[in-house]
């Protein structure tokens, strides 16, 4: 008496129908997952039919099937990118050897830890975002939020598949624990601190999906290089979905800026009080949100010097971003890398062995990538003819992890003392007033084609549908 009709209910390309062990593990886990979704998933969404993209296979035609579905009935699938014949490990000490189809005993603990840490962030963000539907600025945005939520759910399934399939009893226990920890729960919190914070408003949500989901992208990219082939193939497929999350963030902030500059031009003012009275988010506040989310997110890459990072790389568990496109020896024993530290009240660069600095390498790649989007936001402002430029803050600003932790450094990279920091911090990071103001704009707008006053409509709809399509049916 199987609780699940595997081929129908769980689209997969891992031969689930034939794998009795995996079936039994998932039979246990699936009802718990649905309970978790009901308790911790998007609030009040049970009866809604949402225009969602579902992956039913990994080929281009199959992985983006659109239709109105109830989220509870979403077909969370298990997908691996197609395998490459004779794929070889292409970095670290095992370079040139065949990739692993099973977990080598000596790397078991580290791999499990990597998968659990990644897996933990997926349900965590669903929990963080569960109230946002109540203040959606449009039906289009509500749909995008829900799409992200179900895909985070699918990413959880992807990690749970790896735990069940390759890690035996330990893996099953870890998979259960992923549903037991909760974001912000004092007794049993999520593993990474950024995933215990609240996502209080839609500007935070857009910033989170732009900056923090991009951290996810870079972690997934690094894991997609892994010598453990099932992990590499799983994360590669997850990246296709992750792109949508960053799209929601980038276009969401862009549309917020668009609306603000439109109103600035209408009222011919850059006066913050007047703009706030007109119900749009002033550019300095947007800059402060960027400073906050940027700095909190780059902490997620970990300490700037880490022996764990060196071990993960040398043993082939986790590569660098676009490892295959780099021209060095992919072993990195003699290489060095520059990291920042504070000496005599000044920021200085210092050379350290590259293997120990791999977190910093990934962080720097991330910074380059995320600055690209800020440049594109600036084009919206320039196009409107407004002399204002958004900037990514200095890498050392507002850091709480690594050697810069606790130092006081301004967004443009000047070391300051505690008093100077306190005097200016309200210009650099969102104040309680900023957050209260943004919160005051959050009202629910869900008639098709209507948008909240603080945000511009998107340039096009989802899947060639019009912007005023009924993306969510409330029933």
């Amino acid at each position, binding site marked *: 008496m199987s609780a699940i009709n595997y081929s129908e209910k769980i689209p997969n390309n891992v031969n689930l129908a034939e794998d009795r062990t995996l079936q039994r593990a998932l039979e246990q886990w699936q009802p718990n997952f649905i309970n978790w979704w009901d308790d911790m998933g998007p609030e009040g969404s049970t009866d809604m039919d949402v225009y969602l993209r579902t992956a039913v296979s990994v080929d*281009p035609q199959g992985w983006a099937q659109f239709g109105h579905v109830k989220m509870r009935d979403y077909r969370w699938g298990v997908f691996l990118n197609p395998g490459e014949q004779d794929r070889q490990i292409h970095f670290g000490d095992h370079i040139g050897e065949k990739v692993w189809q099973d977990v080598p005993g000596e790397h078991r603990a580290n791999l499990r830890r990597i998968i659990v840490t990644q897996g933990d962030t997926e349900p965590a963000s669903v929990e963080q975002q569960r109230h946002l539907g109540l203040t959606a600025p449009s039906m289009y945005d509500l749909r995008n939020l829900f799409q992200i939520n179900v895909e985070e759910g699918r990413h959880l399934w992807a990690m749970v598949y790896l735990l069940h399939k390759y890690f035996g009893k330990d893996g099953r226990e870890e998979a259960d624990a992923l549903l037991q920890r909760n974001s912000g729960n004092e007794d049993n919190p999520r593993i990474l601190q950024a995933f215990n914070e609240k996502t209080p408003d839609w500007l935070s949500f857009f910033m989170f999906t732009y900056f923090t989901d991009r951290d996810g992208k870079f972690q997934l990219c690094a894991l997609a290089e892994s010598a453990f082939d099932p992990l590499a193939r799983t994360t590669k497929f997850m990246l*296709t979905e992750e*792109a*949508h999350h960053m799209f929601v963030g980038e276009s969401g902030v862009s549309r917020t800026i668009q609306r603000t500059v439109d109103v600035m031009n209408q009222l011919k003012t850059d006066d913050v009080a007047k703009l706030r009275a007109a119900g749009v988010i002033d550019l300095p506040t947007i800059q402060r949100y960027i400073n906050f989310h940027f700095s909190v997110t780059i902490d997620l890459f970990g300490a700037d010097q880490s022996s764990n990072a060196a071990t993960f790389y040398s043993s082939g568990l986790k590569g660098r971003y676009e490892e295959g496109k780099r021209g060095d020896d992919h072993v990195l024993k003699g290489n060095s890398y520059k990291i920042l530290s504070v000496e005599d009240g000044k920021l200085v660069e210092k050379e350290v062995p590259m293997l120990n600095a791999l977190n910093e390498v990934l962080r720097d790649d991330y910074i380059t990538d995320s600055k690209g989007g800020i440049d594109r936001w600036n*084009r919206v402002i320039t196009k409107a003819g407004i002399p204002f430029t958004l900037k990514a803050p200095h890498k050392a600003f507002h850091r709480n992890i690594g050697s810069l932790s606790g130092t006081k450094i301004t967004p443009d990279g000047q070391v300051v003392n505690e008093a100077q920091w306190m005097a200016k911090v309200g210009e650099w990071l969102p104040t309680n007033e900023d957050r209260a103001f943004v919160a005051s704009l959050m009202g629910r707008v869900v008639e098709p084609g209507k948008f909240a006053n603080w945000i511009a409509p998107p340039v096009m709809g989802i899947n*060639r549908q019009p*912007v005023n399509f009924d993306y969510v049916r409330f029933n």
Partner: protein
Amino acid sequence: MNAPTELFNQHLIDPEICIRCNTCEATCPVGAITHDSRNYVVMADKCNFCMACVPPCPTGSIDNWHMRPKSAAYTVQEQLSWDDLPPALSEAELLAMGADASAVATAVAEVSAQSASSSDPNDVFNSAAYGATVPPWSAAHPYTNLHGPKAPISATVVGNVQVNEAGTANETHHIVLDFGPMPFPVLEGQSIGIVPPGVDAQGKPHHARQYSIASPRNGERAGYNNLSITVKRVVEDHDGQPVKGVASNYLCDLQTGDAVQVIGPFGSSFLMPNHPKSHIVMICTGTGSAPMRAMTEWRRRLRQSGKFEGGKLMLFFGARTQKELPYFGPLQKLPKDFIDINFAFSREAGQTKRYVQDLLRERSADLFELLKDPNTYIYVCGLKSMEEGVVLALRDVVTQAGLSWESLGSSLKQEGRLHLETY
């Protein structure tokens, strides 16, 4: 010496919408997509149009196609330098670049037996330069290129009637095509391509001929998956030599129940405004009336619903005689307070020749009031030869009222308020 320029549909990524997520590059099975720190671009010589990159794109920016001569394909370097997509080439520009008129027709419009008309280099007034390449701000979002030349969709003829008086020289038919359960969503102002069966003199399959849609977005019959086109039976070329138009004769002879191969829809700028109190000025000749019929009928249905407050509709319609004019009867039945109709006949026995531009000048006072209103949108559709006369007449109306045509003309273009579709 001058072989006709070969055209192709160049695959482009809109840099304004793209978020540089790398999904397309990772998906492309032939490595046709590359990027630098600024843009993601498609290599024209590598892309094989397999479309594998289109569904995974989270933004829709990947789905852009510009008809260009192969020899003038945008290079990777050019595309990498873009901040936004350049406007697509118009039919006239493609022809000017040496493209074969019939090849242009597959993508842009029906060019039946077009004679080469040399343009006078001293003629500094270029009417086409005032035509907008962007839609009105309140246009609905169009679907385009859902069915390409390699995979046309089959439609069924459910009606074929002559819409001017039988026995007149310009026999014109109103043909209704039904798409059954297949998707073919359209907007007023868009067009479709018809692929005639059989092969041409060189033994190649006929290329598609383009026709404007004559029915509104919700169907020739409201609520049905059908649309109509207006087809003139071509029996002579522009110089008066007898020529039997391949597609038009095929279409005019169709019987109810026949199947027709269709591609499209096409067109994303010649679209009507949808905001309340927006005015529409329509200037057309002959079968150029098709998009005007579509827009008028949509506004009529909206008005009937009682839920939309339309603006003024003004129609300037030219034909050789009243008997030749398509849809003359139905037009007469429209209420006067709904649409202001002006006819010009150039070959009516016993009357002086009158062209649409003459009507424009006669109505200059009313027209000027509309022209200066930012909610007015102007549509011109018909034979190429009318375009310049019409734009010059508009210029005269504006300058005689003491305004600058250069500034009004350029804002009409930039705001998507003057649309020219001539062939």
